[in-house]
């Protein structure tokens, strides 16, 4: 009975550790910085695309205050 209880506790501990490894990692400082950098790259690409396509209205939104 004690062994069974110990196994269940280890199993639960393992599950939580796995959850933390998968989801916790997304909130690390590096991960957030990478997401922010990616967002800025996407934004710049969007502006460049608008310039290339001469999309005046879109550029007005990007440039406006």
């Amino acid at each position, binding site marked *: 009975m004690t062994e069974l209880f110990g196994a269940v506790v280890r199993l639960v501990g393992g599950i939580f550790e796995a*959850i933390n490894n998968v*989801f916790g990692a997304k*909130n690390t400082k590096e991960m957030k910085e990478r*997401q922010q950098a990616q967002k800025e790259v996407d*934004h710049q690409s969007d*502006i460049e695309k608008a310039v290339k396509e001469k999309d*005046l*209205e879109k*550029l007005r939104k990007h*440039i406006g205050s």
Partner: protein
Amino acid sequence: MKNFVSILALNFLLVSCATITPDKIQDSTASYDASTPSNYNKDNGGLIALLDNGAVITSSAKDRYNKLIEMYKIKFKKEKAIELVENAGISPYKDRYGNDLFLIDNEHLVYFGVMNSWLKEKVPADNILDKTIDKINN
């Protein structure tokens, strides 16, 4: 046991929901620009027209561009390896109505948009320390 499984599932759900992903930068509409000559619609965000070699902007837009360079000069240099100076990429432009406007080249128009997004996202401007380090390095 049923309760235990429910709590475990709830825990899993809460941990999953805790993941925060930043929103995409969204610009809503073109803003009002009071310095726009009367020949044009003033809801233009400071951008009058697009030409092959750049964009025609108002004096307010030019001032905002220079202000952004003042705020983010060092951050921009660090991230894009490009040093911006006041009026970079800007030249005077007279339109067909005789209004004094400005022409910004396509490259610097993109930089304007990038720095403007930083401002909208409330990215902190260069601080004294950044400026001092930059001065020492140059």
